[in-house]
């Protein structure tokens, strides 16, 4: 593993909350340390999720300024595209998980597969994702962080 961190979409969402420092001090410290160490890393799936959210806000007349700030953040980040290796690994995890009655959202599957393909550690606030990854023997690719 490279020691670099892939930020999950839900991690970003909690990190950007108005009172994040009061509500989730541990998360804020962890992400601040990551940003101190180097450019942030995101999956293109996170970029897609954030873009479609910002477009909706923009269409409602309250997203243009937020979208510009996100543009500046993403221009500083490393964004990992989907590759054959990522699709293949995601398919493998999906099949294995289905046989064991473990269900993943598509986004979680692709983001986890991206972390694994690039030797990154996925930082997530989603305890279910972390638990599922652990049950499938992928726990070493995930760092779960509690919000409290």
């Amino acid at each position, binding site marked *: 593993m490279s020691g670099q961190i892939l930020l999950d979409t839900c991690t970003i969402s909690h990190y950007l909350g*108005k009172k994040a420092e009061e509500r989730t001090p541990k998360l804020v410290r962890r992400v601040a340390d990551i940003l*101190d160490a180097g450019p942030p890393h995101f999956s293109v799936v996170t970029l897609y999720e954030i873009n479609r*959210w910002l477009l909706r806000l923009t269409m409602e007349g309250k997203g243009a300024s937020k979208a510009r*700030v996100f543009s500046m953040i993403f*221009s500083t980040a490393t964004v990992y595209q989907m590759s054959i290796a990522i699709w293949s690994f995601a398919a493998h995890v999906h099949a294995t998980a289905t046989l064991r009655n473990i269900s993943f959202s*598509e986004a979680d599957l692709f983001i986890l597969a991206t972390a694994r393909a690039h030797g990154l550690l996925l930082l997530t606030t989603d305890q279910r994702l972390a638990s599922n990854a652990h049950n499938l023997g992928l726990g070493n690719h995930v760092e779960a962080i509690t919000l409290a």
Partner: protein
Amino acid sequence: MAFYEKMLEGLPAQTRAESKWAPQELSAETLKYLRGAQDEASLEALVAALAKFSHKIRSAISSFLIEAPLQSLELLENSWRSDLATLCGYVDPLNGDLATWAVRAWGACMRFALREMASANPNEVRQILSVYDEKLMAMPGSPIRVQALLMAAIEGVRQVLPKELIVGVINRAFDESHIMLAAIKPSGVEVDPFEGESASERSARLQKYVEYLREQLDDDDLRALDDARLRQLR
């Protein structure tokens, strides 16, 4: 604008005399844009005025850029630093940062071009610089559109026009500069507006952006992000 003004100082007397009209005419076109509708047609008119000026002194610009690309680079960087200070001093910090980003993105593209020129065949460079493609210049994300908008924002500050008007122009310049970088990326050219920035400078800049978002995002917005998550593809 400052880049052009300083470059004009270094031109032969005859070219300087021929171009004497330019700053006033450009300034007039810029004010027309700022006081007008600021729509696509008026931006195209402003870009055309800037292109006409650049085209008129193209041979002088070519010689200057070909003979001394690295000095041009220094001149460019000094002039945008002074313009940026003017802009940032006039608007709120977020819009100052958007202006910084747009100016740096434009500067990074110019830096890339000047570095390429330094190692290229002068005749080829002269040939490329002689091409005047009006359609290409009018395309969203063309560097001359970014430049025209930044010039307009700076001129607006000089004329002490209302801040909200300047902010609108800065936002448009930012959007255009974003399109500009995205448009050149597929050709394998990646320019970094913050080239040479240290890790701590980058981290401080990112933290500032995060604070802007925290100020703007409410709980409803973040719930909407949760709704926008990709759950099942079918």
